[in-house]
C-alpha cells in the first residue's frame, strides 16, 4: 500500500524503470541513488526467496527515506518487516536468521543509531563464522544512512565507517554513485559474510546512469579509478566524493593546472590497496579525503595501508583532509564549516604538489 510522500516523491519520474518493467530494453536508466538501492533489493528478492528486508518503517511507511517504496506491496509483510525502535533487537534477529540460512537486509534509519547494536554486529555477526569454525555463515547486509546529512545534530551525524572497517569479519561498502549503489548492494546481498553497507541521506536524490540488468553487479573490494591523472592521487569514497571531491578535482584542473587521479575506493574493507599504490607510483603524491574525524578516522586507516608500500615512491607526505574534530554542529553554516571543503582539498593538493 504505497502512500505518497509529501517531502520526497522519488517514484514520479523514474519509478517504473527502477522496477525494470517498462524499460527492459534500455540498458541504462537515469535512476536516483534510492531507486538504485531499491532496484538491487527488488531484483535480489526476486532471485532468492531467502532475502528479506527488516527495519523501522520499511514496510507500511515505504521507508523513512523511501528506499523501500512499494516493496511491501510486491513482497508482502513476511519479507518486508516493520520493527519497533529496537536496533539491538532486530539486528540481533537478523544475525540469528542469517546463521539459520536466511539472507536478511537490515535497514537502519541512521548508522548513528547502531551504537546500541555494535554488540550484535561486532561481537556476533563479525565473529560467528570464525568462532564456529565455518559451520555458520552470516550472510546479512546492514544498510542505511551514514554520516553528516543536513542539520540532524551531533547524535545523528556519526561517520561509522571507521568504527566498522576496523573489524575483521565485516565487509564495509560505501558507494558514491547510483550505479555502484546498485551493483555493490547486489554483491553484498549475495555475499556470505556480514556487510556494512553505508549510504548517505543526502545522496539519495542523486541521479545517475544505472544498468537495468538483473545480472549487473559491482565486485566488492575493487576500487574505481574514476579519473586518470598524472600529478596527484586523490583517494576518497562515499558522499565526500559527490559533495566536494569532484568539484575540487575540477577546480584543480581548471584553475591550477593540477591533473588529479581520482580513486573511489567503493569498498573500505577489504580495501583495494593495490590500485592506490599503482596510482601513487605514477603520481608520487597522495591526498586522502573523507568526512570522518581525522584521529583514528577512516582516512588514517587508509593512510596506514598506503604509506609503507608507497614510501619509496612518495615525493611528499600523504595528506589527509577530514572533518574538524568536534561534535557535529546543528547550525547549517557551522556544519558546513567543519567538513572538508573544496578549498581545503585544493590547498592540501597544492601542498603535496609543492605548488
Amino acid at each position: 500500500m504505497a502512500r505518497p510522500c509529501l517531502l520526497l516523491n522519488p517514484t514520479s519520474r523514474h519509478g517504473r524503470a527502477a522496477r525494470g518493467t517498462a524499460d527492459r530494453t534500455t540498458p541504462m536508466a537515469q535512476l536516483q541513488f534510492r531507486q538504485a538501492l531499491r532496484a538491487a533489493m527488488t531484483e535480489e528478492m526476486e532471485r532468492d526467496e531467502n532475502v528479506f528486508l527488516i527495519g523501522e518503517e520499511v514496510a507500511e511507511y515505504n521507508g523513512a527515506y523511501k528506499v523501500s517504496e512499494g516493496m511491501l506491496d510486491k513482497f508482502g509483510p513476511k519479507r518486508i518487516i516493520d520493527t519497533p525502535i529496537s536496533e539491538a533487537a532486530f539486528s540481533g534477529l537478523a544475525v540469528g536468521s542469517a546463521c539459520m540460512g536466511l539472507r536478511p537486509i537490515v535497514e537502519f534509519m541512521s548508522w548513528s543509531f547502531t551504537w546500541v547494536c555494535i554488540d550484535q554486529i561486532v561481537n556476533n555477526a563479525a565473529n560467528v563464522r570464525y568462532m564456529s569454525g565455518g559451520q555458520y555463515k552470516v550472510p546479512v547486509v546492514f544498510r542505511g544512512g551514514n554520516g553528516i546529512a543536513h542539520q540532524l545534530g551531533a547524535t545523528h551525524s556519526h561517520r561509522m565507517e571507521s568504527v566498522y572497517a576496523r573489524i575483521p569479519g565485516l565487509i564495509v561498502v560505501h558507494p558514491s554513485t547510483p550505479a555502484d549503489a546498485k551493483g555493490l548492494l547486489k554483491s553484498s546481498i549475495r555475499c556470505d559474510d556480514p556487510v556494512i553497507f553505508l549510504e548517505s541521506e543526502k545522496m539519495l536524490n542523486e541521479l545517475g546512469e544505472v544498468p537495468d540488468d538483473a545480472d549487473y553487479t559491482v565486485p566488492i573490494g575493487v576500487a574505481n579509478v574514476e579519473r586518470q591523472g598524472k600529478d596527484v592521487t586523490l583517494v576518497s569514497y562515499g558522499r565526500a566524493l559527490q559533495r566536494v571531491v569532484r568539484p575540487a578535482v575540477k577546480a584543480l584542473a581548471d584553475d591550477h593546472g593540477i591533473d588529479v587521479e581520482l580513486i573511489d575506493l567503493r569498498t573500505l574493507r577489504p580495501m583495494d590497496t593495490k590500485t592506490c599504490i599503482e596510482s601513487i607510483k605514477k603520481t608520487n603524491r597522495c591526498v586522502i579525503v573523507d568526512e570522518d574525524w581525522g584521529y583514528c578516522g577512516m582516512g588514517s586507516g587508509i593512510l596506514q595501508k598506503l604509506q609503507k608500500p608507497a614510501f619509496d615512491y612518495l615525493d611528499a607526505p600523504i595528506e589527509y583532509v577530514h572533518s574538524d574534530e568536534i561534535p557535529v554542529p546543528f547550525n547549517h553554516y557551522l556544519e558546513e564549516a567543519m567538513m572538508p571543503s573544496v578549498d581545503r582539498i585544493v590547498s592540501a593538493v597544492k601542498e603535496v604538489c609543492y605548488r
Partner: protein
Amino acid sequence: MPAEITMPQLSDTMTEGTVVKWLKKEGDKVRAGEVIAEVETDKANMEMEAFEAGTLAVIAVPEGGKAAVGAAIAILATGSEKVEDVKKSGSTTAKAAASAPAGNAVARPEASNQQAAPKAAMAAASAGQERVPQPAESGGAVATHEAASRSEIHEPDGVGHGATRGPAHAVPPLPHGNGNGNGNGSRVFASPLARRVAADKGVDLAEVKGTGPNGRVVQADVLSYQPTAKQAGGATEEKTTGKPAAKSEATAPARVGTGEKQVIPLTKMRQTIAARLQQSKQQIPHFYETVDVDVEALSELRERVNKQLEKEKVRLSIGDFIAKAVATALVQHPAVNAHYDGKNNQIIRYGDVHLGMAVALPDGLIVPVLRHINQMGLKEIRQRSAELVDKARGQKLKGDEMSGATFTVSNLGTFGVKEFAAIVNPPEVGILAIAAAEPRAVVRNGQIVARTIMSITLSADHRAVDGAVAADFLRTLKNLLEEPGLMLV
C-alpha cells in the same frame, strides 16, 4: 602590500648568498629596477635590483649576512601602508626567515632565542649520526649552529602541519633551502622518492638544494640537479684542471715552516669544486690520450703576426692560437664537442663551439665560456677572452658567461708543467690539458734535434667518446697547431 625582497638565485648552483653591501638604507625610496644591494654568490659578486618601487622598510640581513636562496632579506613597503607598520609586522618574520637557513647567519641577535638551545642539542646529536663526520676543529661548532637555526624554522608551523585546513592555515612561506647545499654535517631533508632517485643517479643529496617545505629535497630538485645537457645554458660549473697544486703554490703563505697549523674553512666555491670533481672522477669513465706537438711554426707565426699587430696594441698569445685550433678541430669532430645526457640516454652534439677556459683564482677556479668561438677570428678571441678573464678575476661573471660550455681547455703552460690530465666537467665529454712548450730532443729524419714541443692531453668520457675518435680529433688538432695555415682552410 609590503613586498618581500628575497635572495635571488643568481647562478645554477647558488644555494645561499651573502649581502656584501646595502646601497639603500631603511627608509630610503626605491625605484623598480634600481640596484639596491650587492650580493656575493658562490661564484661572483652581483648587483641586486628591486622588482618593485616602494620604501625599504626592513633590512633583515645586514651587510656580511648570509641568506638562503628565496629567503627574505628585506621588506619593501610598496603601497600606502606606513613604513613603521610594515617594520613592526614584517621584521620578525623576515629576520627569522633570513637567519634560519644560513649556517653562520649573521642576522640579528633575537633570532636565537631560548627555544633554540635544547633543540639544537637534539638536532646536533642526530646530525652526528646522519652524516659524514666533520673535522673536529670546526665541524662540531658549525653543525650545532646550523641545527640551532634549523630548529627555529620548524617551530612556527608545527601546529598547522596537518595542512588539511583551508587557506587560513596556509603555512607562511618558509625559507627555501635548508642550507644543505653545502653538506656541512647537518641532516638533509629529502622525500623518499628524492632519496631513491638520488641513489639511482648517484647524486649526493647534501649537494642538492631543496625547494620543498623546510628545504626538503624533492624529486624535481634531484632531477634538475644533474647538469642537463638539453639546454646549452643549463650546464654550469667549475671546470676542471689539475690546478690545485699550482694554485696552492700561488697562494701559499709567505712565511714557510712556521710550524703553525692553519685551518681553512671551505668556501662555497671550494665546496662546489670538490663535489663536482669528485662526482666526475667517480662517475665518468675517464681515459687519456697525449700527443706531443711541435710548436715552432706556431711560435714563428705568432711572432710575425704580433709584429703586424703592434700598432693596434694587440698581442696574441699561444693560448689564443690553441683556442682557435681547438675550435676548428672540434667543428670537424662533433663527437668530442658534445654533452653526455645519461638521464635521457642520449648524446647531444653541438654545431657551434662554446669553449670553456679554466681560469685560476686565488681561491678556486672558474671557467668563463667563449661562446661561438668557432665564428671568431684570433683578434676577437684575444679581446673576448681577456675581457672574460678580467671579469672572472673580479668575480663579475654573469650566469651565461660561465655556463654552457661544450668543451673546455685548461692551460698550465705558464707554470712549466710538462704534462697533465684534467678532469672532465660533465656533461661535457672532453677536456684538453695544455702543458708547457719546452725545448726537447726529438728525432727528425733519424737525427736527434732540438725542437719546441708541447704535450697536450685529452681527457675524455668513454661513455660518449671512444679511443680512436679521440685520437682522430687529436691528430687534427696536432696538424692544425703544427701547420697553423690549415686553420685558414
